[in-house]
């Protein structure tokens, strides 16, 4: 999957950030699921949709990839918690990709909320 393909996705929430972790794109499904409208979230930090207790880990991991360019989470589905505009925390399957655009890394992710049965384990 590529960033372009992600942008064409309209049934699953998609978010794209630049190398600074600033949100540059969300699709309609994202707006519906997360309660954010595009103008309100574009240009803001991705940590908005990450629970507070995972933000440090996110910042460290994100920075490590930019420093080492060695992925650990990319291009396979992972379960991570997310938080919507109302502060509701939920478990979602993330599929994250990275691409260089004009020499800068850009990251895209699909965020598919999982119900209880779909989760591989409580909290996982």
């Amino acid at each position, binding site marked *: 999957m590529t960033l372009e393909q992600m942008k064409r996705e309209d049934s699953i929430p998609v978010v794209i950030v630049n190398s*600074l*972790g600033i949100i540059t794109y969300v699709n309609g499904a994202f707006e519906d699921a997360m309660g954010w409208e595009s103008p309100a979230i574009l240009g803001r930090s991705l940590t908005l949709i990450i629970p507070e207790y995972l933000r440090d880990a996110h910042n460290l*991991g994100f*920075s*490590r990839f*930019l*420093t080492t360019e060695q992925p*650990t989470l990319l291009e396979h589905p992972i379960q991570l918690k997310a938080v919507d505009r109302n502060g509701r925390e939920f478990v979602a399957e993330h599929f994250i990709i990275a691409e260089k655009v004009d020499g800068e890394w850009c990251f895209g992710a699909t965020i598919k909320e999982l119900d209880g049965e779909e989760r591989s384990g409580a909290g996982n």
Partner: protein
Amino acid sequence: MPEIEYGPLLRQLRSTLGKLEVALGAIDEAIVWTDHQGLIQWCNGAFDRLVQRPHFRNLGEPLQQLLPLEHAGAGSGGGGHPWKQAAEGGVIRGLYRFSQGESIRALEVSASRVEVDRQASIVMTMRDVTEETQTRERIRRLMRQNQLILDSAGEGVYGLDPEGRTTFVNPAAARMLGWAVEELIGQPQHQVIHHSRADGSAYPAEQCPIYAAIREGVARTVRDEVFWRKDGSCFAVEYTSTPIVEEGEIQGAVVVFRDSTERRLAEADTARRSRLLMLLQRITEAANEAESVEQVMRFALDRICAHTGWPLGHVYLTDPESSSRQLVPTRIWNSGADSRYDDFRSLTEVTEFKVGRGLPGRVTSTRQPYLLADLSQDPDFARADGARRAGLVSAFAFPVTVGSGVTAVMEFFSTARAEPDVFLLEIMGQVGRQLGEVIQRKRAETRLHQSNRDLEVFASVASHDLQEPLRKITAFGDRLEEVSGEALDDRGRLYLSRMTAAAGRMQVLIDDLLQYARVSSRGRPLERLDLDQLIRQVLSDLETGIEESGARVELEPLPRVEADPSQMGQLFQNLIANALKFRHPERTPEVRISGRMVSDSTRPWCEITVADNGIGFDQQYGERIFEVFGRLHGRTAYPGTGMGLAICRKIVERHGGTIAAHGDPGRGARFRIRLPARRDPGKEVEQ
């Protein structure tokens, strides 16, 4: 205010954070950060490896479920998960067990609570010390085993540092040395236990082999030194000092030692027993060489006095003439006795004992050696006053036994008190028995010598005094026949002829007896002899008789012997002539002479057999035929004096050999001669 460029700033921060993340991920220690609820906010790669889960799956997880920990009894902490205790405000540092499936890891855990943004967080670090713990446990067990070995060892063991100071001592070493273990630790060991030699002279540390092992890095074993106890006494030790070398550097030495007092005593006892046995052997050998019984006694007295250091030795003899079995003193003493014992000697030389009384009498009645440790305390020691004046304190005596009787008692006196010595007395008992055998042999030799002298005298008488009248009888008989033969009637001539024949036989008898007597007295020195050649000469001498009888003589190769050629010639001439004389009337006589080397328990022998197919004899006469004038047949049937085989036996016995006859009536006879294959120089048996 200029516009802030957040982009570069963020990039810079990202870069710094990325490097920090990489660094934290590279260390071996697991680090985990949780919020106040215990949910993992961040962990490093070592933590991921510890719980064996992907990094992203650990984030947000409750730490206590992901990493259940059990306190392992070391450090602070105790009950409960360290995260929980840290959350409650404690600072935890301790050893915990982390079980995951069948694997159990030992973790050194540190947990503490920090306030970030007014929020409580818990930081935990974990170091996997499983292998360290296992190694430490193995070392602990090994050290415990070593300690048990050292504690239970019978040998003393101590360690030295490079300066020779004691680093450890096992209980056996401390016990032997009479010090407490803690008193010896840190002490310069040479100065404490090894400062002097056995004779009390100083033992410089630079000469000490134990320290030499440290200096030179080579193990040293010493068997004949002493260690000194705390109380100032010393004991014999044998020790090995082995350098401790680590990475090429000598770190000290380990010394293993044992108390060798008993070993040295045992060695000394063995050496003493060996010397006593040698004494017994020498006395026996020398006694065999002695020319008289008295010389035997004197030699034994001298050797025993020299060996024991006892200054006085004497011999009592049993008196065969005495019906009450009296022991009579002799003037046989050890040579070189000090003059201060003269009075005691004089007293002894007039003191007789009945069997059972006094030291000599007691030894005679019991036939056992006896030691009197204190002469003054023995009421039965009649010469006590004399002994006291001479300064004699102890005595021992042993019987010289011949068969079941006691022929002499040898007694010895000492100026120092002697303690009972079972082995000495046992050996002296053996000396007594050996001397008895020698004395018995000497007496037999003396009797034989006397007998031979008597025979020689007879021979001399026979050769001169008997032969002269015999010659006259023969001569006058011949004259009578010449002068008056015609005048005599037939009866007279018969009488005359029988008289001269009898005189002739008597001459042969006397000649044979002379020959018998001279086997001992006229024998020639023994020499290496070719028996084949000698027997061929004998056969040549007997040629006429062999031809007349038509006999067949078979001679096999014979060994060389040391013998008197003349007597060997006589021996085989008698045996072969015997075979021809006692031939079977219906058979061609056959004589077979063969030889071989044989050995028995005493020595090797040359065995020569002369066998014939003659008339043989009944084996019951196998000995009688060797007797002087021993005959099995009438003179008419087989002429001769009956001296031939007696001479044969005397010749063989003079050579230290044996002869035996085996007869089979009507079939033949076999004579087996054994002569010593090697002869002791100068040895010849008197017959």
